[in-house]
């Protein structure tokens, strides 16, 4: 069981999942300033749960996401900084699934990975088609 709320408001849907010891998040739609608070709350809970569960990695699927604005993206940077501040044995990795045909995903996630190349992995996969 994980204690992470879904997001389904303001054009954004985000759902956590924990199956077979793997913690993941899927985003769909668009994240603008209206969703900033919800994303910050969700990512804070994900961080807490990831540490509680001791997972080595959290997967974040952006493929069905049309856009994440700068305010919301900052929440991901803050999340990454929280991971960086952990002792190295507590740190977990972030694996982002992206759709490289969406230029903003390619650019933003590559820039994000530069904050911590050992903690952020980007995997390019075609979009699943639904959004």
């Amino acid at each position, binding site marked *: 069981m994980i204690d992470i709320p879904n997001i389904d408001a303001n054009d954004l849907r985000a759902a956590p999942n924990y199956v077979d010891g793997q913690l993941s998040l899927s985003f769909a739609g668009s994240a603008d300033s209206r969703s900033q608070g919800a994303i910050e709350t969700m990512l804070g809970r994900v961080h807490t749960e990831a540490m509680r569960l001791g997972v080595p990695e959290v997967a974040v699927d952006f493929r069905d996401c049309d*856009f*994440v*604005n*700068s*305010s919301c*993206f*900052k929440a991901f*940077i803050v999340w990454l*900084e929280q*991971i*960086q501040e952990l*002792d*190295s044995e507590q*740190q977990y990795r972030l694996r982002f699934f992206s759709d*490289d*045909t969406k*230029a*903003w995903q390619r*650019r*933003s996630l*590559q*820039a*994000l*990975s*530069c*904050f*911590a*190349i*050992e*903690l*952020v992995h980007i995997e390019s996969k075609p979009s699943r088609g639904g959004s």
Partner: protein
Amino acid sequence: MAVAEALPLSIVAQFRATTIERLGRIESAWGALTQRVGTAEGESELFHDVHTLKGEARLVGFADVVLITQRLEDLLVAARRRRYRVTEDVDVLVTMAIQFIRMLVRKRAGASQGGIDINGFLKQIDDVLAEWPRQSETPDASGATGARAGEGGKVSVAVRQRLGGAATQMFLELIMSDERPRLRRAWEILVGELAQLDAVPLMPLVRRHALSAKEVAAELGKEVDVVIEGPDAKVGIEVLDTIHAALLHTLRNAVDHGIEAPHVRAAHGKPRRGQILVNIRIDADAIVVTIEDDGGGIDTEALRRRAETLGLLSPEDASAAPDSTLIDLAFAPGFSVREAATTISGRGIGLDAVRAGIERLGGTISLESKRNVGANVSFQLPQSRRVIDVHRLPSTQPGVTFAVPTTWMVRAERGDDSIDPAIALGLRRAGASVSATLAHIVLARDGEEYPIVIGGSVTRVAAVRICPTSPDDGLEVVSVDDEKMLLIRPDAFFPSLRRSL
């Protein structure tokens, strides 16, 4: 870690606190401007804050912060030209640049940060800047980029780009003419003159650093002469900040950790007064700067122990590692200088950031040392050039190579509607042989696709822009080592070939 070890910790702490506040103001001002609620005063303060941050970072030796802040300033200047009507992904990148600086300022020596990739982040910004059309080089009312405008503003960017376009056309004629010597000479002169348009004198910067190094030595109770050798060279303004950061670190480290105190030197049979030699050499395509001191050199045994402690090398590897391998670790991100400096008379302060900046510009840096004899840092940078990552595309016409920026994705495709760029440009000579290896590919970006046919497999390389043209121009000549390539911007070059997804 780019911390000035010679500076009192209180100054570094003050810089950190001031910068965190400053970044908050920068972020707020940027948000206001992009949301159309900013004021002229707010804009002026934004540029003033960024410029001051860059200057303060230089003073305290945060070379990595200097590099990112410079690019942030470039982004802001480009955004201002567009009255802050920027795309969302540019907004994200600016926000991330601010966060990146915040992270670098907060970073403590020795902390595990999971591998900060400064070079990669600079590249992301460079890619965005390279994509933005530079319509005009307007004077900077805030003075934030006044130095640059003054140094490089004698000829506008638009004129330089038109000259770049002329050079590109001349290069096409050169290919078609079977390399007529006089045409080649004219092309080389034009490209050389283009490089000089962006050039500024290097020697005043070197002299300032030499003077500063002697002042630091005096503060540390050391005696040192700084000798400068070399011509009164000019360098491209885009490499000046990187050279500044490299000189700042290498000279200060030479004084702080290399040159011994007079009584120590005397005990080793050396003159009480140390010497640092700064040698500048201009090669055909590059500027080479060497900083050599006659100090104590690097304690490689201490480096060996440190590498093992940090887990960078296993005990077996550490024991067997040659000095060259150990010295190379001085460039490794996270190789904590603060901790190392307490146990070794070593270097490395900010060297990872210095190397990142140099490599980003297509240059190299090396460090050699001999214990109790001295150390030698040498870096070379391409002159007055810009580096761009490209896909190298062999042409169907032997002897001709194309390239596209890596902001375009390349994928293989079987198709009948592909166009051959060599034919489109009229480069296919009658009776000339054609590459036996034909490949149909698609260049794709942002919902647009352009199918073309090339003459071999695609590779990714860093190319030097030797005659930059406008982003609205379809062509430009770039260079990888001695190979010249025709850079294609598909959307401008093949507008009729566009396939929308």
